């Protein structure tokens, strides 16, 4: 780590007053500190958000509001989340370990950076870390990398489990700006595809502060699932994951909400499968067609062709689990 000044912000406006181009916010620290140890992140000042009064989870007129500084553990175990957004509880609990979830904040979770090993290794070319330096993964070992939406600049995947459920749940991210203004970003626009600027993971501007994540009400709590496939049983990042929720009328699917993790630079909303399943019977035959349709657009790299079949099977399995409820 390079030397840095340590400051504590007691409220959001103090945090926004302290932030500058070379400073970084610290929430749980589980990602930023790791990156600082590897010299991937080199802030000259750390602004500790740990004491901001943004750690509550509360019902609102339109759904529920998750404080940006509320811990992942607390969020996953909150009575209302378990009951009305079980897909989110499951997704959070599928990530990392109990210790890390006790530290990790909801805002920090959204902003965690890719686990591409070339991004972490500062002696390798990486357009995300050093724009214009090249992408070592493109011709390197890319088993963990993307099959959807990558560009010739970057093939990394976004690692959060929580965010996959938030995507299927149509969450909104509330952000406070340095001029005191506020804006709300629909989840589907929050994270970005790499295109020509893989250094940008998301549409947050440096110096903006996430204050909360807003979840609208939904009608699929009883028919939802979060399925994660990984190299070991627990405490590993996803190879492929699926969040799925169905609104059913009898045995007909009124609407399907489906997002995939481990396959793209952002939570991959499976819009093709969603459109196919709308107003269809909830049968294995339709599940299989929807999964095939979604995965038919995949473009694998040298080492990750397996993710196409794995993606199909994980989608179908998630649909079956969601149907059973």
């Amino acid at each position, binding site marked *: 780590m390079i*030397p840095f*000044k340590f400051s504590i912000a007691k409220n959001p406006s103090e945090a926004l007053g302290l932030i500058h181009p070379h400073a970084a916010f610290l929430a749980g620290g589980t990602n930023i500190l790791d990156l600082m140890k590897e010299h991937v992140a080199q802030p000259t000042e750390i602004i500790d958000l740990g004491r901001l009064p943004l750690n509550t989870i509360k019902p609102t007129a339109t759904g529920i509001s998750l404080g940006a500084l509320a811990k992942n*553990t607390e969020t996953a175990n909150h009575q209302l989340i*378990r009951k009305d957004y*079980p897909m989110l509880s499951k997704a959070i*609990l599928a990530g990392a370990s*109990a*210790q890390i979830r006790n530290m990790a904040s909801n805002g920090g979770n959204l902003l965690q950076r890719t686990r591409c090993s070339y991004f972490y290794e500062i002696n390798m070319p990486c357009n995300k870390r050093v724009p214009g330096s090249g992408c070592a993964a493109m011709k390197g070992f890319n088993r963990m990398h993307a099959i959807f939406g990558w560009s010739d600049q970057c093939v990394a995947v976004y690692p959060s489990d929580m965010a996959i459920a938030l995507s299927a749940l149509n969450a909104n991210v509330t952000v406070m700006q340095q001029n005191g203004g506020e804006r709300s970003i629909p989840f589907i626009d929050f994270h970005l595809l790499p295109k020509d600027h893989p250094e940008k993971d998301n549409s947050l501007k440096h110096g903006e502060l996430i204050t909360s994540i807003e979840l609208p009400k939904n009608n699929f709590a009883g028919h939802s699932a979060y399925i994660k496939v990984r190299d070991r049983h627990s405490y590993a990042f996803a190879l492929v994951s699926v969040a799925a929720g169905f609104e059913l009328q009898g045995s007909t699917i009124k609407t399907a909400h489906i997002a995939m993790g481990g396959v793209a630079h952002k939570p991959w909303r499976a819009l093709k499968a969603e459109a196919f399943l709308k107003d269809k019977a909830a049968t294995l035959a339709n599940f299989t067609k929807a999964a095939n349709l979604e995965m038919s657009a995949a473009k694998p790299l040298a080492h990750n062709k397996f993710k196409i079949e794995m993606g199909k099977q994980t989608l179908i399995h998630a649909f079956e689990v969601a149907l059973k409820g």
Partner: protein
Amino acid sequence: MKQNTSPLSPEEKKLFGDLMPEELNEVLRSGLQRRHFLKLMGLASAGLLVSHMVGAEQLFARSVEFDEIPDLIPAAIENGINVSFKVNSNNKKVLIDSRMTLLDTLRERIGLTGSKKGCDHGQCGACTVIVDGNRVLSCLTLAASCEGKSIITIEGLAKDNELNPMQQAFLKHDGFQCGFCTPGQICSAVALMKEAREGQASFVTSNIREQAGAVMLSDEEIAERMSGNICRCGAYPNIVAAIKEAQTGKNIEQNWLFAG
């Protein structure tokens, strides 16, 4: 270094007499010191200690702490911070470099070397400590962010000469081999008991939508909830047995037997 000068019990005397006869007089004369303890742990990992443990478990409860660590020189640090927190119920005030993790602060500034540095990247759990009641990774915690908090380390689990039930269960079930992951495993397991009492869910909890009361943990639940603590020696079956015994209070059969 602080010596632990409380007199040895008859069982402890026998243990030293049998296993470390050449050190016995020194221990009797000048108290238990860190190097005696380390040698004893070496014998433990060779499996020699098990048969001698009955009645002498409290040896493990004794905290051996350095108290002569020189302070950092304020002028020599670029970003010095004075931070005060409680460690194992004692108030501590230390001057640190802003870059110091809680793990390095505990080990290098406070002399509590029980918490281990396995990976320093959040991937192994060897550095697990309990902060304000919750298990966290001290290698990914900046000490500067701990102002006013209360930290429990492996050294703070025993009450006087009485081991924490989780420590006793780990000893009984041989929940370790080399012992490197053990302080983290035990701190993690102690906090897990609180999580289970509160009815916290895990990824393998089947009825997530129901509000669970206190949960009795199955082997599968224990494995999932302890997955943040890696054991390279693979002592997992014994760790699970120990946690089960500590949670249920019931005698769980050991996975190992003496040969013969």
